[in-house]
């Protein structure tokens, strides 16, 4: 196996160059800089040998033999790396707190948070599946820096493939003596086990996650005490996200100085985003901090498919917000996203086109959070429920004047008074959609119209007689026989029977010959 640089230098021109473009020149790949994803596509995650051959586990001996724990912490501080799980707390400072914390029992723990909860984000899954040893190597280095002897990877049970990969990686690393006692003959002991989540979004929150590892229901508790002082079983505990851990070997190997040369003033390094939704190129991208949304959506993502109009990007999942087209030149880093009312979150970027109803989207996120609230504190449990009721009324054409203000009032109390991060950020999707798309809310509330033609209560499906070829495909897919008409003649939708499932619209829209003969008004 050659190193990446060898491969590039050995390139020779192929006769087909004009037909076969270079990967690195393609829009999707051109602006990406792979760091956490440095081994993407190159290694078999089931073979530790491939990771080692590619230069893996090179940072570990350096951290074990050539650096003191303080020097490791300093290196991470110098790098400017911030937590990739969402809040963006400086990783080096977090490590320093855990390193300096005293443990009554002598134990300290490190945890890899792979409870990737944000719908629309899947970089943690992908990293664990594709490069589990990078995450493990980062954890061993962190454990050495903080003086921890035990670690946990807390991963969603919905990710069976990722669970298999990380479990296997741990076994192989143990066989090689890269985990366990006396690692590489250094006297340093560290063990890692996998804990599978039980299906609760709130367990991404640190105190809830720890409760879950301890075998209890994942209800957050107030902080202080912070996990760095009193975490798992009352011992100092450091929790970092998968992507954060995967960055560590690079920082140790190439230096914090080098790392801090990438990115913006306050946000260093690269960030992985999952670019999904109404965008041509969907996938995982890794770009330097500070790249604008325009570059991400249009240059890398290739813009919105089928000639639809770009409307907004949702960033940060249920805790994040919607960034409208007017802010498309926003450089993406922690600070700029926060200013726009969104958050970096774990890096989900969901592109919306004109067919997305922002009120429906807000209701979607609020219903999601209502189901995922642990129910412990009143503003989150009762407040989000009330928000969902109001938003449901609005999308089902029962909105009334004052609803928008009521949502804002609830949002204020939920944001200020909730116990944990879930509640404190829960109103963000509602607040940002009100902030940037207030006219859409007003249209729903005052005129009972859904401009994006999504809210079922306000739309009807009709056939355009001029475009209908009478192919009968919609007649066949209609589950309630609401569409009728003889072959080769324009069909008709019986509005009394129609349940607005959209099956006819779906099938007609993708039919190259007929075009959009079913439309929504």
């Amino acid at each position, binding site marked *: 196996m050659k190193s990446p640089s060898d491969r590039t230098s050995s390139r020779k021109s192929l006769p087909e160059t004009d037909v076969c473009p270079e990967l690195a020149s393609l829009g999707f790949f051109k602006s990406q800089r792979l760091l956490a994803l440095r081994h993407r596509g190159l290694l078999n995650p089931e073979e530790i040998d491939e990771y080692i051959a590619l230069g893996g586990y090179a940072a570990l001996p350096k951290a074990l033999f050539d650096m003191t724990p303080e020097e490791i912490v300093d290196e991470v501080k110098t790098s400017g790396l911030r937590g990739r799980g969402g809040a963006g707390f400086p990783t080096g400072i977090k490590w320093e707190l855990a390193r300096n914390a005293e443990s009554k029992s002598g134990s300290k723990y490190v945890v890899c948070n792979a409870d*990737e*909860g*944000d*719908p*629309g*984000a*899947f970089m*943690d*899954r*992908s990293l664990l599946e594709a490069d589990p040893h990078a995450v493990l190597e980062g954890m061993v280095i962190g454990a050495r820096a903080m003086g921890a002897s035990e670690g946990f990877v807390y991963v*969603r*049970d*919905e*990710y*069976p493939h990722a669970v298999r990969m990380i479990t296997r990686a741990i076994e192989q690393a143990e066989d090689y003596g890269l985990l366990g006692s006396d690692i590489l003959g250094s006297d340093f002991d560290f063990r890692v086990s996998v*804990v*599978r*989540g*039980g*299906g*609760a*979004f709130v367990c991404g929150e640190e105190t809830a996650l720890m409760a*879950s*590892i*301890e*075998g*209890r*229901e*994942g*209800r957050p508790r107030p902080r202080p005490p912070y996990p760095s002082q009193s975490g798992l079983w009352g011992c100092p505990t450091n929790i970092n996200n998968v992507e954060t851990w995967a960055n560590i070997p690079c920082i140790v190997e190439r230096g914090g100085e080098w790392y801090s040369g990438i990115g913006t003033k306050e946000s260093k390094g690269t960030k992985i985003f*999952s670019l*999904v*939704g*109404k965008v041509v190129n*969907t*996938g*995982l991208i890794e770009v330097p901090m500070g790249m604008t949304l325009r570059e991400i959506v249009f240059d890398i993502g290739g813009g919105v498919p089928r000639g639809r109009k770009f409307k907004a990007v*949702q960033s940060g*999942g249920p805790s994040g917000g919607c960034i409208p087209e007017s802010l498309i030149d926003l450089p993406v880093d922690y600070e700029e996203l926060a200013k726009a009312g969104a958050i970096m979150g774990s890096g*989900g970027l*969901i592109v*919306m086109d004109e067919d*997305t109803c922002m009120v429906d*989207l807000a209701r*979607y*996120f609020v219903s*999601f959070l209502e*189901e*995922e609230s*642990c129910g412990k504190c009143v503003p989150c449990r009762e407040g989000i429920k009330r928000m969902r009721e109001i938003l449901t009324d609005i999308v089902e054409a029962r909105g009334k004047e004052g609803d928008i203000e009521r949502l804002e009032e609830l949002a204020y109390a939920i944001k200020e008074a909730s116990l944990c991060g879930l509640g404190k950020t829960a109103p963000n999707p509602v607040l940002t959609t009100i902030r940037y798309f207030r006219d859409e809310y007003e249209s729903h509330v005052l005129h009972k119209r859904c401009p994006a033609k999504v809210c079922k209560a306000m739309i009807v499906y009709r056939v355009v007689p001029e475009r209908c070829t009478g192919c009968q495909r919609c007649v066949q*897919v209609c*589950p309630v026989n609401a569409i009728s008409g003889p072959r080769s003649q324009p069909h008709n939708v019986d509005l009394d029977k129609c349940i607005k*499932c*959209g*099956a006819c619209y*779906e*099938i007609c829209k*993708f039919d190259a010959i007929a075009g959009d003969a079913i439309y929504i008004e």
Partner: protein
Amino acid sequence: MNGLTILLGTASAEVKAKLSGVLQGEGYDVDSAGLAPDLFARLGERTLDLVLLSDDLAETNVLDLTTRIHDLHPKLPIVVVATEPSVRDAVEAIKHGAYYYLEASIPDSDLLDVIAGALELELELIEEAEHRRARRLVSFEDLESIEAIDSIMRRHDFASSRLVGVLQDIQKEMRYLTHDALRHVAGRLGIPLPRVYSVATFYKSFSLKPRGRHTVSVCLGTACHVSGGVGILEKLERELGIKAGETTFDERFSLESVRCVGCCGLAPVFVVDEDFHGKVTQEEIASILENYE
């Protein structure tokens, strides 16, 4: 037979016949002794679950006997049956280590209630009692599942902190969590049952209701939501004739919505067991389902 043995200490043939009849009728195995030495011999030679002492044993004070048995086997419940009851004796018997003191004339049903209660306290720990009760309540076939559950817990070193993992593995093996399974786990891991119940109802991946052979999970993550995931879910509901969270009558499919399966690049997505189906349309759903028997 319920697998539990009671040692009956009485010199009276009448009492012996009456109590043995009642106990055996309830499924207990009854052994008896008429003299103190015999009683202690029995105590030494077999595993007992409870001692029922009548105060008619010759030459022996029932209170002293209680103390001696209690000292030897502090966890063995002792119930004293008094032919001549008195409040003072009752108090003394309890002080000497008896679990209960009752009148010989007590109705059979009350006697059985007391014994059932005593057996739960056999190991003093209520958790253990719950574990025992789970063992007692299950039928023969279920004893096999108890073994299976035990072997799952063994894989987790019987560590109470591994509760979530234990329940996940039980659910994977048995498709859902029975009340008995939860009781058994609580007893074995030494976790109060209410905590086990809280955990089992808090996490959405657990089901306390029977589930189908295949689980159909429709992703309703954001990318799937904006790409028609709800339409896919509704189509599946119509196709299977059940709502999300329900199981088909033939127990072939359970349908559920999940918050995000992390396969957003292929939205809309649904998952059958561990098979991901991406970029699906309502039209192809029926043919996908056909692959699962």
